[in-house]
């Protein structure tokens, strides 16, 4: 705010917004720098995003394959060894990232969009809609997700990452809807909402401009958590082997490493199993570190100035 006062011709809407934004990014930088682990988190997630974006382009024709080196030990040529056909495991992990991350993103967007809208509506209007919506979320939270997914996989083949994400998203919005509803219920009794209502502002304005911004950080964190949840779920489904292996995916790798041709009977096959596990753990670590940083950026009480 002080910056605006000094700026020549300050007080204009545009420049004030710009300086607010600059302050925000400065805050982000400060929070990231305080704990080096957070920069690591950003780096890890950026690495996986890059793998998802350009990974498949690195191996345009076919994956590097060496028919003479089945289950080869890690070496310079194959940092994580090779699989049962001699394909380079690192290449498998890199090209598999796109499917996994794309599904995670689609799921997160659907989960958050549905959960937020329904939670806001239920919490703000209360009454009959609220009761109906909460009964539906009850049902969704009670029916076990994984068995339902398994049973659904017999009717619906979840072709491609987009469809997979759609299914996971449609099954997973209950938790966020419930959380957003309870936040709305407590926020709508606060002074600033009452003031907005007293000023005669429209419901759209109150929900969109007053309620939503104060919940945005919370929703953003939930979105990241939804990404990890979706990644676990789809890798798990492929690992169980109930879906057709139509593309390269970390879950397919896990399945073949454990159940394919007694791979786990010798220690030579271990790198093939451990590489996708390591990828999942690393990605989780990166997201957890970023959530931790976001928590501090949006929740000033946690900042130790």
């Amino acid at each position, binding site marked *: 705010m002080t910056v605006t006062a000094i700026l020549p011709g300050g007080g204009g809407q545009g420049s004030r917004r710009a300086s607010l934004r600059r302050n925000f990014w400065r805050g982000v930088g400060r929070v990231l720098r305080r704990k080096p682990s957070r920069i690591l988190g950003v780096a890890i997630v950026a690495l996986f995003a890059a793998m998802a974006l350009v990974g498949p382009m690195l191996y345009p024709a076919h994956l590097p394959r060496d028919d003479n080196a089945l289950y080869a030990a890690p070496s310079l040529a194959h940092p994580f060894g090779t699989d049962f056909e001699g394909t380079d495991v690192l290449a498998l992990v890199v090209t598999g990232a796109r499917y996994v991350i794309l599904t995670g993103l689609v799921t997160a967007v659907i989960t958050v969009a549905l959960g937020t809208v329904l939670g806001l509506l239920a919490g703000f209007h209360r009454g009959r809609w609220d009761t109906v919506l909460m009964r539906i979320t*009850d049902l969704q939270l*009670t029916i076990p997700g994984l068995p339902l997914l398994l049973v659904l996989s017999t009717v619906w083949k979840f072709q491609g990452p987009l469809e997979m994400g759609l299914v996971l998203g449609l099954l997973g919005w209950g938790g966020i809807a419930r959380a957003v509803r309870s936040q709305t219920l407590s926020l709508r009794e606060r002074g600033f909402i009452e003031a907005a209502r007293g000023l005669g502002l429209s419901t759209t304005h109150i929900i969109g401009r007053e309620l939503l911004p104060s919940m945005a950080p919370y929703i953003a964190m939930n979105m990241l958590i939804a990404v990890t949840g979706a990644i676990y779920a789809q890798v798990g489904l492929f690992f169980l082997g109930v879906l057709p292996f139509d593309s390269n995916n970390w879950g397919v790798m896990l399945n073949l490493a454990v159940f394919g041709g007694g791979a786990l009977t010798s220690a030579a096959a271990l790198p093939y199993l451990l590489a996708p596990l390591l990828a999942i753990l690393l990605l989780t670590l990166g997201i957890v570190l970023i959530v931790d940083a976001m928590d501090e950026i949006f929740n000033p009480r946690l900042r130790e100035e």
Partner: protein
Amino acid sequence: MTLIAVRGAPRVNPVVRRLAGHVVRGLVMIWVVTTISFVIIRNIPGNPVLGQYETLIEKGMSPDEAQRATAALYGFLPTGSLWEQYTGYMKALLHLDLGQSLSTPGTEVVTLLGSAAKWTVLPVLGGTLLSFVLGVTLGVYAGIKRSGKLGDLLSISGSLLHGVPQYVIGLLVLAIFTTLWPILPAGGPVDVEFVPGFNAGYLASLIQHATLPVLTYALASYGGWVLAMKSSVATVLGDDFILAAELRGLSRGVLFRYIARNAILPLFTILALSLGMLFGGAIFIERIFNYPGLGLLLVNSIGARDYALMGGTFLVTTVAIIIANIAADLLYAVIDPRVRTGGTA
């Protein structure tokens, strides 16, 4: 009780009213779940029910006999209107008739479910109780010594184990104890050479085979208990009666008991829920260790296209969770008097 007499109007005991509400809601949920599994089985590509019916006719069976044989397998008639099929399916379910298994011909689905359930209950109960006791005890410590080194370590290990999916833990356990350092058997519930019964060899083999699944359960759920207990302890620590106890100069042991007993209350509800949940959540662990419980039954039934078995397993898994939900709520009313009296707690 005297209050009721004075008022004259008969008032139902709040616990009974709660129970009635839950039972009604539970029944509605079971109905919804059965309807979902009916819709799914009926819409499977290629319509296995009609396919079975037609195969039987091709084999020379009369349409009437084929109708009956197929209905025995799936629990509903292959032909007829949607409504007739649906009511037929529901009627069979009310008689606890889940149809017959296709992959093990001539066996009732209910029989298969019964034998699988015992293999699920054993490790689930063992693993959950083990991690509950460990996690709760360590969670109290982590909650009291929040700023200490050990408290930090406990919280971090809890968050990590809680955040990692079950199958990652299971696969790591499998790789470590059966491949890298092969000291325990990799799969199956028991070695075949022993005669089932109360003899030392059989029991030893049973325990050997159950060790890794139980360990995985325990590791996978331990983190959740530590975190839940820690936050519950943190809430209790702020209560007035703790301050009063400190001012009265009560010993550390007594204080510890005060804190633990009050903080553990909400965890009992989660315990009841997780016992119900693990029927469904055991899928990964049973698949990894080839343990013949309900989870493996579900996966195998899908692989074998045994849809009657699949529907039955799904139903049992879900009903277990719905019952656990009701049990959790009642349990809370029993152990926490504030809920029982119907007061606002």
